[in-house]
């Protein structure tokens, strides 16, 4: 048990390191240059070169990677290429905003999806199940940006219920944030629910078809008792895994949603930095996303172990 835990943790660390290398060297390969972009077309080769040297990008790539990596271990994310400021404080406020958005979406999406999936499994092959199936197929097939613009068109432009952009600022009260959050959260919830609903339903159906549920029914237990006592404990593990994996996907969906709603989060910061070719910021944001994704996957694996009696109690 401890061995599995240690192995999984070590693997997570290796994966984060690999992600950091990939991000760094992929950034190196990008065409274009932040200095030319920043200084505009009137810049002389000398000023461009001077700016590059002042940001330290003239050193060899491997040396800069190791330096970056060393900084990461000390909690130093490096400095922005375009304005020379520290990245960490810049990201801190953005990360907080992103966590608010992602947290609100997860808080609504997870219970909604697990609930709908459970109901679909109970009313298997009936009208409710079919309706959920069709709806989830549609939402799975709809890209985030399409749904986001549709939502803006309907709720912001036509109905004027909520604003179409969601610029929240520091110190804004929760009540004032709510209408701004509504559309991005709605988009994230709708687009992340479908997969969780389908997987919840599939997990429950496979357990309901198992021999031991048949045994419980032949013991004369009422159906709800069978679900509570025999089905739920056995579907926790697969559902937990699916939920956590979908939270990881939600993080990816954030980048697009934030950009569309001009929400001042990590995703938008990343997109802005790409257009400014501020590679160090892109790398820092990318690494945080990658680490989150890897961490959530690791949590999914550990949950699966923790909820499996075969692994908790040896033979």
């Amino acid at each position, binding site marked *: 048990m401890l061995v599995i835990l240690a192995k999984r943790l070590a693997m997570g660390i290796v994966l984060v390191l690999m992600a950091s290398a990939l991000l760094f060297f992929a950034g190196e390969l990008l065409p274009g240059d932040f200095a030319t972009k920043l200084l505009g077309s009137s810049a002389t080769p000398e000023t461009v070169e001077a700016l590059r040297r002042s940001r330290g990008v003239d050193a060899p790539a491997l040396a800069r990677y190791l330096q970056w990596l060393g900084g990461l271990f000390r909690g130093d994310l490096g400095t922005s290429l375009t304005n020379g400021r520290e990245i960490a404080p810049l990201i801190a406020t953005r990360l907080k905003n992103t966590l608010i958005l992602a947290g609100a979406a997860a808080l609504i999406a997870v219970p909604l999806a697990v609930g709908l999936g459970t109901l679909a499994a109970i009313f298997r092959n009936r009208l409710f199940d079919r309706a959920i199936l069709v709806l989830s197929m549609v939402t799975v097939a709809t890209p985030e940006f399409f749904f986001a613009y549709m939502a803006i068109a309907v709720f912001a432009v036509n109905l004027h219920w909520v604003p179409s952009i969601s610029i929240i600022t520091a110190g804004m009260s929760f009540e004032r944030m709510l209408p701004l959050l509504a559309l991005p959260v709605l988009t994230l919830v709708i687009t992340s629910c479908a997969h969780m609903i389908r997987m919840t339903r599939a997990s429950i159906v496979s357990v309901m078809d*198992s*021999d*031991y549920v*048949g*045994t*419980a*029914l*032949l*013991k*004369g*237990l*009422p159906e709800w*008792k069978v679900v509570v*006592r*025999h089905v739920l*404990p*056995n579907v926790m593990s697969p559902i937990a895994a699916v939920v956590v994996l979908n939270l990881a996907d939600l993080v990816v969906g954030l980048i697009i949603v934030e950009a569309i709603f001009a929400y001042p989060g990590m995703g938008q910061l990343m997109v802005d930095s790409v257009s400014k070719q501020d590679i160090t910021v892109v790398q820092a944001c990318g690494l945080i996303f990658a680490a989150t994704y890897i961490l959530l996957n690791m949590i999914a694996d550990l949950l699966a172990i923790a909820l499996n*009696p*075969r692994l908790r*109690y040896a*033979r």
Partner: protein
Amino acid sequence: MNTMTPLLEIRGLHIDATLPNGSTAHLLQDISLTLARGQVLGLIGESGAGKSTLGLTALGAVRGGAYVRAGEVRLGGIDLLTGGPALLRDIRGRRVAYVAQSAASAFNPAFRLIDQVIETSVQRRLMSKADARRRAIELFAKLELPSPETFGEKFPHQASGGQLQRAMTAMAMCARPDLIVFDEPTTALDVTTQIEVILAMRQAIREEGMAGLYISHDLALVAQMADAIMVLRHGRMVETGSVKQVIEAPATEYTRQLIAARGLRHAVQPERPPLLEMRGVTAGYGNVNIVENLSLVVPEGRTLAVVGESGSGKSTLGKVICGLLPAKAGRLVFAGRPLEPDMHRRPLDDLRDIQIVHQNPDMALNPRQRVREIIGAPLGRFQGLSGAAREAAVAALLEQVELKPELADRRPGALSGGQKQRVCIARALAARPRLIVCDEVTSALDPLVADGVLKLLARLQAEEGVSYFFITHDFGAVEALADHVAVMRNGAIVATGPTAQVLQPPYHPYTEALIRAVPELRLGWLDAVIAARKTRSQDAFPDRRPS
């Protein structure tokens, strides 16, 4: 309650099912039976005969897609089919309980055994939790489970198959029902495990005075467990009567065939030179060796049977011969020349000469291929046949395994179990091999069908001179086919020699234990075993693993 009312009364029961293609199948037709309190009725028949369907109706249950067309099922005078769900919930578990074939999957993996055993009694408020636990522990002891006080604290994955089957019996008995339906409770177990389970179950049924419906395809086993027998075939009752009546004076030809199914005997043949020699073979997976330093000889045109419990290394040995699992050490000599351990490095001739027939034909045949392609592939690869010549060869092979040539157009899904196994044999024969590894080829088949396959294998050996490496746990099959026998246990050979010598006294003690565990088709066999056990010391096999 009126003591004259039979416990279970089924009258004129018809059960139909709607198949996926819209047609109707008759699962049960005009079945009637009565069962008195404390009586055990054995339901016997091949797969698809409707045994389990009939057993489930005693709990008022029908499987998905099936429905009752006519008839009535009364338990203690109460009609189960018109009673509605509340009545069925009340009856189930409390008055009639169910023991499934696979206890391993019938227990919820997330709970300790005792919590599942006492669930009916506690959840239905029939007993207090403390009383139910006491009752469960008493039953564990009665069913001879190891350390009954603590056995229930195990999770299902921590108990063996034989233990789980007994725990499931305890689960059924815990709430003191009047009737228990046993649905093939020992089919998934080894013979040596099976006998422990049936002994324990029979004693428990007697002591608790419960009635039972005992479903099995093994007539000899049912004869030991039941007071009366009903023979079913294709959903209809063939005959019914007391055990003595049915096995000593069967009224129908079908029952006579069932009884005769175990009677095949193989004539003693002159000795032949060795075809395959295994010398000091060691093989296994990873760091674990399954067989160690093992030597065996398969003679030309003869059959070597390898018998033993599951986990003894029989199938591993078969894989080593085929080169599917390369031996780690030792030598294989085939027809005088050394054989590469790994099949990927064997020349085409060696691959052609050694073929395999697997235990489960359902998994050994590609469901998307037609029989023509299945048998045609080795014909093309090993004989270089194509077109009309291949077509003719497929037809000839089908005829050789006693199948109609028209079956060449079918896919495995449209064949019966016996037909599928014959196609597997034809596929092996297509290579014109000198040795066929037969891995439990009859264990997934019904007795009469298995009988036919054994006869076919014997005929093919006489005609083609092919040798068999015959892996089995069925002594009936050994006597029907084998010239030589090797008895395996924990990866080693404990006895080997000509069949007549190994299977006759004086036995090796382990061989004797295996043979004695096979139910015999005579009245009172189980009682004789019980009596013999009481007089003999219990620890004849101190190193035997607990079942």
